[in-house]
């Protein structure tokens, strides 16, 4: 059986290529049908804000990649409710149907995966 991997993405979309590159790990794993989860933590939750305009900074829109996750077989999407609350986003409309988890549930989530990579 394949080992599962949880990728924890904790950077905002505007800090250079590393946010996109974290997402690419998930997309690449999904293409190989691996059991993957993606958790948005800390500033990573800013990736889920609707209405961002990448073109204003001459960048590619991350939204399309994020929304491609389920198509690539990455269906386990999670977001830290604490990170959302801290950043005033707890009631915001998010661009992905990520499951909101509190700290206790996040500890259990990490426990469930064979491997965890935090970027």
């Amino acid at each position, binding site marked *: 059986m394949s080992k599962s991997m949880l990728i924890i993405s*904790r950077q905002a979309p505007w800090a250079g290529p590393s946010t996109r590159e974290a997402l690419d790990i998930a997309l690449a794993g999904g293409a190989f049908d691996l059991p993957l989860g993606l958790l948005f933590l*800390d500033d990573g939750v800013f990736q889920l804000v609707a209405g961002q305009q990448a073109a204003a900074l001459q960048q590619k829109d991350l939204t399309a990649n994020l929304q491609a996750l389920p198509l690539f077989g990455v269906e386990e999407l999670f977001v830290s409710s604490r990170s959302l609350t801290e950043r005033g986003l707890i009631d915001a409309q998010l661009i992905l149907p990520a499951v909101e988890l509190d*700290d206790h549930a996040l*500890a*259990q989530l*990490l426990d469930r995966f*064979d491997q*965890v990579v*935090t970027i």
Partner: protein
Amino acid sequence: MATLHLLSHSPFSDSRLASCLRLLGPDDGVLLSGDAVYALQPGTAQLQALELMPASIALYALDEDLQARALSAPARAQAIDYPTFVELCGHYAKVNSWL
């Protein structure tokens, strides 16, 4: 499936340690390396937070990083070398590096 968490950023300028401490499972371990060993600076809230962790959570620090920074491991932490680091990876089910 206990996790060994590997940290390498200073807890005084970065939120990784704080985030990590909130996600720890009861049998997880924390390994401080690089500037993350500054969390062991005496008299700081960061050291206090580490000392408040349940006793079941092991705390390690890479010895070379302590030496370089004129720090010594408090009673709560175990200073380790690279061979021990490698063995710890086998002791825990996985290693989560906070890159």
